[in-house]
């Protein structure tokens, strides 16, 4: 029997209009926040609980959330900021959109609790611009409801808590998902990541102490405080507490968002998604969004979907975006499509990424068009290696890792494809 699905960040199935305050309250929503507003739940207790819960950031890097919060200078002068990263754009990832659409109050309550824990009085939710039609209005409506109910604003409750929460809508740039690129964008600039140090906790939005957390991370927080750190820990596997909304896409029968305990086996997850489509065989999986290394079937089949297991297998949990590829997939074409994405989305400031991502894409194009030799694979790898670790933000790494992992696992297929493309081209020109 496969591991069952659970709902921590997502509302229970069948809930009516789960995005409404009424529905969220019925499910126990805002109970924790109201305790904080009444003065019964102290900021330090929230921080301790989140630390103890083992919650890690769901945006891709998996950094321990409580530890990140503790970097905010204690008792710092206001304003300091909490920023939610709803700029969901890692290819293959589509769960934050569903949190915004179906459970926006969990996010608002999570943000309020997080801000309170860190002493931040102002929050911004940075939502990607493409979400303008449905997720943004849902979030705004929830914000209005929360505001009308006295849950956000100034001088709230007996504890006279200040928490002002504002929406911010992006305008189309993958790099704004990087936290310092996001802060630049929030300041009204192109989203070019900042060099760290200083880290946002020292100098973030407008030079003030700032913490940026991902949507799903924050949406976990009310449940953790309601049910306790131990409950959350027990949901997942060691080092991987709680649940993850896995966005399963690609060659499966039932693509979708599946919230399951961390540590669910890949095979169980694939089964929830109906297995590989059309009765075909599994070839490869990118387990955490397009930036993480690809794993061939025989390796991913042995993996549990958590931080440690995927790291041991040479990849990463990333955003939990599980991209499934069947036996018919051309890995050279997949890699070129991924390379085109990083080429288009590089912000342009660092030399290796600005110049190198286009070079990778052009080489891969030549390989598919019969204008490359097998020796070009070494050049491809060398250029990827020269980008990796040499840029301000991780986009350079994200452009390099797919190249490295595709070549590591599928090099013979690349060589064969190069040869056949050359042969086809010669025939066409004959």
């Amino acid at each position, binding site marked *: 029997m496969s591991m069952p699905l659970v709902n921590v960040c997502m509302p229970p199935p069948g809930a009516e209009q789960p995005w409404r305050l009424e529905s969220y309250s019925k499910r126990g929503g805002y109970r924790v926040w109201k305790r904080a507003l009444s003065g019964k739940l102290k900021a330090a207790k929230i921080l301790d609980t989140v630390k103890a819960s083992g919650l890690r950031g769901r945006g891709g890097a998996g950094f321990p959330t409580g530890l990140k919060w503790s970097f905010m200078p204690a008792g710092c002068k206001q304003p300091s900021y909490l920023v939610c990263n709803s700029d969901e754009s890692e290819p293959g990832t589509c769960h934050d959109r569903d949190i915004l659409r179906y459970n926006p109050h969990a996010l608002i309550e999570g943000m309020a609790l997080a801000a309170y824990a860190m002493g931040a009085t102002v929050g911004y939710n940075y939502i990607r611009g493409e979400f303008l039609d449905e997720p943004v209005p849902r979030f705004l409506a929830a914000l209005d409801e929360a505001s009308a109910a006295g849950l956000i604003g100034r001088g709230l409750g007996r504890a006279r808590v200040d928490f002002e929460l504002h929406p911010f809508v992006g305008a189309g*740039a993958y790099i704004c998902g990087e936290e310092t690129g996001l802060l630049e964008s929030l300041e009204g600039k*192109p989203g070019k990541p900042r060099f760290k140090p200083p880290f946002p906790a020292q100098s973030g939005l407008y030079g003030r102490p700032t913490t940026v957390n991902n949507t799903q991370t924050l949406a976990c927080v009310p449940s953790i405080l309601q049910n306790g750190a131990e409950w959350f820990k027990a949901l997942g596997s060691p080092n991987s507490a709680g649940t993850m909304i896995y966005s399963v896409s690609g060659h499966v029968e039932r693509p979708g968002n599946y919230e399951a305990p961390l540590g669910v086996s890949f095979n169980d997850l694939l089964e929830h998604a109906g297995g590989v489509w059309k009765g075909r065989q599994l070839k490869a999986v990118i387990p955490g969004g397009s930036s993480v290394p690809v794993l061939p079937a025989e390796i991913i089949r042995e993996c549990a979907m958590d931080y440690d297991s995927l790291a041991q297998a040479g990849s990463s949990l990333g955003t939990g975006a599980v991209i499934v590829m069947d036996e018919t997939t051309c890995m050279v074409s997949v890699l070129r499509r991924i390379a085109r994405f990083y080429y288009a*989305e590089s912000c*342009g400031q660092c030399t290796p990424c600005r110049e190198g991502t286009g070079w990778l894409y052009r080489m891969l194009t030549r390989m598919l068009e019969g204008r490359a030799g097998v020796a070009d694979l070494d050049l491809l790898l060398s250029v990827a290696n020269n980008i990796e670790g040499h840029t301000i933000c991780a986009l350079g790494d994200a452009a390099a890792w797919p190249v490295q992992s595709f070549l590591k696992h599928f090099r013979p297929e690349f060589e064969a494809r190069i040869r056949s493309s050359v042969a086809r081209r010669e025939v066409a020109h004959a």
Partner: protein
Amino acid sequence: MPDNSVRFTVDGRELEGAAGEMLIAATDREGIYVPRFCYHPKLSVAANCRMCLVDVEGAPKPLPACATPVAEGMSVRTHSQRAISAQRATMEFLLINHPLDCPVCDQGGECELQDLAMGFGRDISRFSEGKRAVPDPDLGPLVSTDMTRCIHCTRCVRFGEEIAGVQELGATGRSEHMEITTWVKRSLRHELSGNVIDVCPVGALNNKPYRFTARAWEMTAHPTVAPHDCVGSALYAHVLRGRVRRIVPRENEAVNETWISDRDRFSCEGLYVGDRLEKPLVRRNGRLVETGWEEALAAAADGLAQLREEQGGQALGALVSPSATCEEGYLLKKLMHALGSANIDYRLRRRDFRGQQKEPPAPWLGMRFAEVESLDSLLMVGCDLRGEAPILAHRVRKAALSGARVSYLDLAEREYLHPIEKAIAAPPGDWADALARAAADSLSGQGCAVWLGGLALRHPACSELLEIAADLPAEVVSGRVSEGGNAAGLGLAGVLPFADIPNDASFSPGMDAGLMQRQAPGGMVLMGAEPEFDCAAGAEDALAEAQFILALNPWASDWMRQHAHVVLPTATYLETPGTFVNGQLDWQSFAAAAPPPGLARPAWKVLRALAGRLELEGFGYSSPDQALADLRRQADSRPDAGPASSGGSAVDSQAAEEERFAGLQLPMHSVDGLVRRSLPLQQAAAA
């Protein structure tokens, strides 16, 4: 070392630095070279070029030296395998889309990319894709663009935002399509914009008028000093085959840091224009004709001698450009005195000289330029600082950004580009009252100052303004932003109608510039001054009445062609040795960078020869240094105030308003003959 000092090692060497200081600043100080493109010590850290990656022990990846603060115990290797391979990787990426058109690039030979490619580049490119081509925006007459060469370091963008205070260039687009541009067709307007040429590490932004005129390695560099404002920026003149090809800044932290104004950079384009004189001119039968020096000097000496004979020495007068050198001013003063005249002045656009003998001899700022940055409050009266002294305006901007309260009293509000306390717009007739009020309202704190600028010094009641400023409480520094590059030097050289007058009963204080421009003495000597542009309004008509007019000038202006009797072709500041004293009283001597064209000669030599013709004693100087030594001795022994009888003239207070307040405003690119003849500057002014 201060308390916050930290110890760390670089390539095995023990170094000390201040905690938080960037590694590259420390290695630069110690002479350890780390390659870089985007880093510039005067600009914010961008860390985008990735050329300065070094190996820091314990760090998971190489770190940029420009953005890595030094820390206690840190161990850095700049030449380890990891550092070198990171730097080589960056160099390869920089070159793949760079055109490598070095043979036709003006930057060739002085290009940071070219230099580093020699050290870090590969012999053979591994890049076989097509190269990027980028359109070139038209940035106006001063800066040329070849944007395909751009390496996107953003120094020019940061220069605009951080130094100029107005962002004109930006980085549009993203990924490899990012472009440095104005986006819409827009010329660079800021008075310091030419500095982007120097901050650009490659040949993307270059000196437009200089384009294709020389190769960097063919030219010789001659240190000199800028003549157009009271800053006296340090310059190099680059010379090829006897001609100045371009001007670039010379670093002098105490004066201009690393910047120069566009006026100082591009005025050299006026050097060799059409009306430049290569031979002396003498009026014959009503027409100026070219002649040799013998004949011209004879005509000049005869003209002066004859008037002295007929009407006495007091019938002679001299007007000297405020950008003449100390030596030139001193020699002409000495010559006038020897001829029996004290009618000499360099304050050509000033109109009110009452009380002049009580003013300090050198009009200066009252403080060092660096001290400006730590002022608490500053009031500028009648001062178009960005136009008058752009580098000083940059210091004031820095002061304002770090909290100084800066106020202006002026005809109207201008574009200031920094936070201001007050901008008081008042008709000039109200300035005296307004100054007294504004000083009381806006000056406070440890360091405070009042500066009178060009408009105040050209004001018909200038003396009143000076007096109010001088009478402010002692803690208020009262300074002047004076015209020209050497007002302070000429003041110290005594080029004034009341200074150093021979102890001789026949001598009395002479005519000031205002008086000479209303009632011209019979014989006029004009040195570096073109009356139709360089004097107070109306002077050209009065001066034309003189019976004999001798001009010493590099060019023959229209007025001279019409009225002068002898025009002696002289050198510009680039063609003569000399000394300027700037607004913080630095004596800055310089050598000639290039020979003057044709028969033109440095004015100090011309004056020496003229004195010889006139058979005057004491002009046997074999170098300008000797004249300088004499004048400095004289300046040191001069009493603080001039004779009480030298009250000075003023404009008729009954005259109509428009006449009294005429000529207050002086456009930035009209200040002197060289600037007026620089076509690119005139085009920029018109753009």
